[in-house]
């Protein structure tokens, strides 16, 4: 089951990015000159290793025995019945070791760091899931690990902060700018530009400069590879719609990518609508942003008329980011994927529904994808199917949810 990873379907027509990292007009490499050498080196190494049998064997073994893949495909029967429409299948990424899909990428990148002989890894994190996944693989491989996290997120995700510390990582609170994910990414870039000789920067989403959007996508694509095979095996057909939440967009790219050439399958990304897209207090650049350049790539971005990056709002720290991976920008522009938004309230409602009806505690990020399902499943017929990327579990969000409910734990 874990075999198809990194193996592109040979009959594929979709082949992005270009050698210079462009997905259509998006992507590229907009970084300080100091970093171009390291990015070239990373791109070359990855090109060499992605089809290397030994590298793949090492990766598969970790994914199988350390992460616990493949993750199940699960029919959410009570939710399907209560919504009264399409059958809802959940790809259970919440069951990965560490509780989210993020570890698939960090294992891949940590193995690359090991091959490069770099003894130190750094990461940025918002909700802390990517930080935890990085701290985990660093412990597993004996690498030194520093994680940058916005000061505001350090407070709202204190459980994950402590998890990282338990695994030997150093968590560095970032106090510049808006003190959230984008500022953590700025600070990680500053660290990397200073320590580029002995440090690999494990970017946690399909953004950043080339080759990151490509390699993070490839490592995350095991989600879609497995889910596609499982749909055929368990349901006997491909889904009508694949749905995933989109912050930077790695879980969505991971599940979308193996379906891109299945043109009968609709791909729907769900951004964080915050208090509502029309209020401006959101994190939905594909719904309400313009083309710009941040963190090494050209994509949709929430920025003002002067090009300043705007502050974002979402109940979920992991989606609270003003940019989005360039491949999503491309998929939007060519019409291959559509991008909706769910508000904080809609996500919370879907969060509660999945708890009550399926006994599954989803992450608040994931709950945005579920909100789209709540809204749309009933409009579909009973013989149709929706595949949802249940990208992570919500244990980390319990304090936030309790706070919304006015309960002190």
């Amino acid at each position, binding site marked *: 089951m874990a075999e198809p990873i990194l193996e592109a379907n040979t009959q594929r027509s979709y082949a992005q990015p270009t050698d210079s990292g462009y997905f259509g007009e998006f992507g590229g490499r907009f970084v300080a000159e100091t970093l171009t050498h390291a990015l070239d080196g990373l791109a070359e190494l990855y090109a060499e290793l992605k089809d290397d049998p030994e590298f793949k064997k090492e990766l598969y073994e970790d994914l199988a025995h350390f992460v616990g893949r493949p993750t199940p495909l699960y029919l959410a029967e009570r939710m399907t019945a209560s919504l009264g429409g399409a059958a809802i299948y959940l790809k259970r990424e919440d069951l990965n070791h560490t509780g989210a899909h993020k570890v698939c990428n960090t294992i891949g990148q940590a193995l690359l760091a090991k091959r490069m002989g770099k003894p130190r890894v750094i990461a940025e994190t918002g909700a802390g899931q990517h930080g935890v996944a990085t701290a985990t693989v660093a412990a597993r491989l004996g690498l030194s690990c520093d994680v940058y996290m916005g000061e505001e997120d350090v407070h709202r995700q204190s459980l994950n902060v402590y998890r990282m510390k338990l695994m030997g990582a150093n968590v560095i609170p970032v106090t510049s700018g808006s003190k959230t994910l984008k500022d953590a990414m700025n600070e990680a870039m500053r660290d990397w530009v200073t320590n580029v000789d002995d440090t690999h920067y494990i970017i946690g989403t399909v953004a950043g400069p080339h080759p990151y959007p490509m390699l993070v996508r490839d490592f995350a694509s095991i989600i879609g590879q497995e889910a596609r095979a499982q749909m055929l095996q368990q349901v006997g057909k491909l889904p009508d719609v694949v749905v995933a939440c989109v912050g930077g967009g790695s879980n969505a790219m991971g599940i979308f990518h193996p379906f891109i050439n299945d043109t009968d399958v609709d791909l729907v990304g769900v951004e964080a609508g915050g208090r509502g897209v029309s209020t401006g207090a959101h994190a939905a650049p594909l719904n309400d942003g313009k083309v710009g350049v941040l963190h090494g790539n050209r994509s949709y971005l929430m920025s003002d008329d002067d*090009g300043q990056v705007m502050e974002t709002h979402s109940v979920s720290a992991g989606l609270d980011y003003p940019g989005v991976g360039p491949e999503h920008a491309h998929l939007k522009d060519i019409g291959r994927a559509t991008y909706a938004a769910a508000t904080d309230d809609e996500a919370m409602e879907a969060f509660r529904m999945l708890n009550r009806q399926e006994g599954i505690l989803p992450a608040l990020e994931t709950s945005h994808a579920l909100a789209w399902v709540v809204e749309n499943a009933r409009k579909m017929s009973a013989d149709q199917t929706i595949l949802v990327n249940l990208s992570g579990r919500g244990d980390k969000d319990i304090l936030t949810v309790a706070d919304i409910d006015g309960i002190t734990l």
Partner: protein
Amino acid sequence: MDAGTANQGRIAAEFERLREQGKKALVTFITAGDPGVDFTVPVMHSLVAGGANLLELGIPFSDPEAEGPTIQAANERALANGMTLTKVLDMVVEFRASNSTTPVILMGYLNSVLAMANFAHRAKGAGVDGLIMVNLPQEEAAGLRQTLTAEGIDLVSLIAPTTADQRAKEIVTTASGFLYYVSLKGTTGSAAIAVDEVAERTSFLQTLTSVPICVGFGIKDAESAAAVSAHADGVVVGSALVQLMSDSADPMTASKRLETATAEIRHGLDG
């Protein structure tokens, strides 16, 4: 005519003048609108009075990912003061009212420039001579360079300690104005500069091009400026001046302090 004088503007003229006098260029950096909008233009004149040859003016940006803490804080203060790129250009216009010879180079991040329609034309009209884009490596620069060149504005290329020889050869083919050699791996205002390493790289770069080479990042005072300038056509001083600005209560104090600091560095260079 080599690439360095292609635009025949103030930058080329200034380096030509310095070469004739056997002097090194002193390039100074401050962030526009920091710590107050009324500081910038008076301080620009003071920098020239103290002996600066070229003025770099930072375009405040929300996410200055290659800057150290000093210039990050300057960006945040300037934005809190309501700075925009339009206001930066207005400051250049004001400066030009009484200085028509000192080259002014804007430095910042690509998203600021992309957000302004017709940037090159407006910048030229304001009296801007050059542009340094921190996050625009050679591969991505062709389009912007073309529109700038059409207006006679130099897009200054950066070369880092990690830039491989072959890549440096490609970068110098389009170099204009001057080459900015980033002296160390790190952010602006980082730790000590290794003069020997800089000398080794700049002497290699000098074999590739006749475009003037200025060295920046990590130059804090007259001593480090003098040491580095022996191996380059000029030096860039930024964070040390920005720190002095932020410590000054009013434009008058800032002007005096920056003029004195610039004069000291000038003295070190002219030694």
